[in-house]
């Protein structure tokens, strides 16, 4: 919310989960945040709340959707992006900065403004960010350009990524490139005071592409 206001000086509309309609929007953001306590499976209960049918309609109309962290989990639960997010390989919640590499993708407002191979430093904070998809599904994701971010550089303990994600996947796009789910939190890397502005860069480029 604050991040979007900071970048666009426009105030996004907040939508209550029990509502059933969604007004026309340039972008719907499903933020992080342990919806429904993450009971059963992360994002499962939220993925069935009344507002979600409207979200499906929005996406079917070609509307853009960004799911961050728990929002990504909700998107996978609703099958709006492929794969699932399971428990971190270390079985622990993990909050830390990670480095992401921008990959080449299908045409997408989320990647069009980013330089390929660019590294972004953005924090993660999750318990279930371990991306999983069947091998043939992974292959498809690769060949169709649906993988937008991968973890690089590993962590200080020598692991390749913070959660065990298949192919170091940190963010995936829907087939048409209009829906993005990502584990890292760009809204937490908005200011030098936060320790970096790469999140702001990503959000700004996405918004420019969407609003132009």
């Amino acid at each position, binding site marked *: 919310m*604050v*991040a979007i206001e900071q970048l666009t000086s426009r105030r996004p509309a907040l939508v209550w989960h029990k509502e059933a309609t969604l007004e026309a929007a340039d972008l719907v953001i499903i933020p*992080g*945040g*342990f919806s*429904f*306590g*993450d*009971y059963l499976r992360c994002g499962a209960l939220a993925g069935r709340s009344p507002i979600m049918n409207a979200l499906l309609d929005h996406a079917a109309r070609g509307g853009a959707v960004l799911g961050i962290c728990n929002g990504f989990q909700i998107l996978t639960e609703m099958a709006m992006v492929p794969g699932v997010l399971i428990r971190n390989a270390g079985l*622990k*919640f*993990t*909050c*830390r900065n990670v480095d992401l590499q921008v990959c080449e993708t299908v045409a997408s407002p989320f990647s069009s403004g980013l330089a390929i191979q660019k590294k972004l430093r953005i*924090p993660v*904070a999750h*318990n279930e960010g371990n991306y999983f998809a069947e091998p043939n599904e992974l292959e498809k994701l690769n060949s169709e350009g649906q993988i937008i971010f991968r973890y690089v550089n590993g962590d*200080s*303990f020598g692991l390749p990524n913070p959660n065990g994600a298949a192919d170091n996947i940190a963010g995936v796009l829907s087939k048409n490139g209009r829906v993005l789910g990502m584990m890292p*939190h760009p*809204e*937490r890397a*908005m200011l030098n*005071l*936060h320790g970096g502005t790469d999140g702001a860069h990503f959000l700004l480029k996405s918004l420019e592409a969407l609003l132009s």
Partner: protein
Amino acid sequence: MTSELETMNFNNAALMGLSRSEWDLVNKRLGRVPNLCELGIFSAMWSEHCSYKSSKKWLKTLPTDGPQVIEGPGENAGAVDIGGGLAAIFKIESHNHPSFIEPYQGAATGVGGILRDVFTMGARPIALLNALRFGQADHAKTRHLVSGVVSGIGGYGNCIGIPTVGGEVNFHKSYNGNILVNAMAVGLANKDRIFRSAATGPGNPVIYVGAKTGRDGIHGATMASTEFSEETESKRPTVQVGDPFSGKLLMEACLELMAQGSVLSIQDMGAAGLTSSSVEMASKGGLGMEIDLDLVPAREKNMSAYELMLSESQERMLMVLKPSATETARAVFDKWDLDFMPIGQVTKTGRLILLKDGVKACDIPINPLVDDAPEYNRPHVDAPVRAQLASTDIADSRPISQTLKLMLGHVDLASRRWIYEQYDSQVMADTIAGPGGDAALIRVHNSNRGIAICTDCTPRYVEADPKTGGAQAVAEAYRNISAIGATPLAITNNLNFGNPEKPEIMTQLIDSVLGMGDAARKLDTPVVSGNVSLYNETDGQAIQPCPVIGMIGVIEDVEKAIGNGFTSAGHEIFVVGQKDDKNDGWLGASIYQQHFGDSKIYAPPPINLAAEKAHGSFVRQQVLKGNIDSAHDISDGGLVVAVAEMAIKSSFGAEIEVPNLGQLNGWAFGEDQARFLVSAANSSALVAAAKKSGIEITRIGKVSNTRELKFGSTDAISIEELVATYENCIPSLMTKKN
């Protein structure tokens, strides 16, 4: 059912922890013999936890006033003015015993409980911290307890969406059978919209909101005895389970309702549940209360009056509303899917009257429950006199770098990353400095103002000399807040001790409170809230005394705050608060002694409060002027450990000059107080300012571009090598095979 109305006898009272004289007093105040529910209420209200009967006399000596104080001890949490029309509302609380029994749920409900204390006052919580003490690192149970407690704290805090930004952890064998889990929460409120708990207006409805009541955590001592229940098995006291999701809903619903202006008074249900909340609300308002227990939303069938009153189920609140507001309030709670139930009303009678199954289950005058709660002046002795340890008494011929490497692998000094990475320290995106710094720093939303927070206590000092240790905890917190550039404002404290009926334990309690009081007075940081946890013993073995201090401070402009990692090569490194001919240091009760000395208890480093204040203020002013680029207080491990920590936090190294003569181990690892390590680009301005203020300052070296620490001309070690021991200690402890 009727058995509940039967009268009790002294044996029943004794099982609930009442003494003979307390039992007699109950009968006298009541004018008759109490029934089970009434006795349960008296015993809960007169318990150490609710009445502070052993500590009250001494807590009264603490300073609680100051121009910044809006609300001192007595309400759910303390409140101080932080400027800009805002109040910071904060408190710390222990959940030691439940966390030992069930580490995950114990710690999680500890966090939930302290959050309720804060949002009950109308504050939106902005930060959580925790002070933890575990047994020996290699004790069989330690790993299980550490991992359960840490994931429980994260489990609740992460899920409810409040960042956990700091805390402290120590390991010592005295905690093998009795760990400490203290949780602190800080919230923000409009300073003229703070909610209090005193009930007002006879006839106003008393409303129960939140989760349903079950048989969670009912007073163990009483329920364990079969005399009180027919179906002992099913009524067995159960562990409280936290439900952060309901906690979140409750928080949002309460804050929404408070914003509407219909809440007259509100109180969370913490220890002793409905009993303490109803009694405290009525007593503070000088009124009475009548409650129909059949209306209390219950999770289980056939709960007795006693059980309903003593249950410690989580995520519940009691409120008094304006009568006209009941329906709009109900709509708010419906929206958040929470129970909302008018269960009684405020009365003029000054009595607590409870109905159950249509009959009176309890009728007691409220005043005695609070005013006649016993207050003891328990016997105590003189604190032991400790010998001083001379640096020469510890033989250590290693080069500084090698000793340093061993020290950084000490479980009390090693990196806490394994712990704090399990906490979401950034949620809400206002965390400017999370765990790993001297104090955490949280920005006040939509402003540049920041709140600095830390917790501190060094139990080995308190054990050696409780008065010094009590003062030191405040002084160290003062240094941590000052080091980032913030102005200390006030403190909360959590007094963790053994059995107060033992005179030597009572001495620890008294002296450390006196020391804490002295320091709080001299450093202008009044005590605005706190908590006491006594009887922390197993098999007669008391814990190392642990009076934890939680301190908050304020900084007008977060952009001016600094961190504790070096920021550029070439910056000069100084010790503020140290003479330049110093070539020895205080090793008694230090980590160095623990590591390399004998196991005797020696006198801890003395505290000079005037110096603490002068040095802390100096560093703060110089940070705000931009004359200091990074700063770190010198505490556990001494000067050289502080240098290493500043280097590890940065991407630089340092070249340190070492005295030619003297006791190098004392100089390097002594824990003399009131000192800061700082780095400065503009060193002449800093030195001039120090001279002008009469502050001792010593240049000890400079920040270098190589990832190496050099001591003098021959002794060097790579930072990488230090990081390896520093970072691996706790992870390898946690994965070690039994």
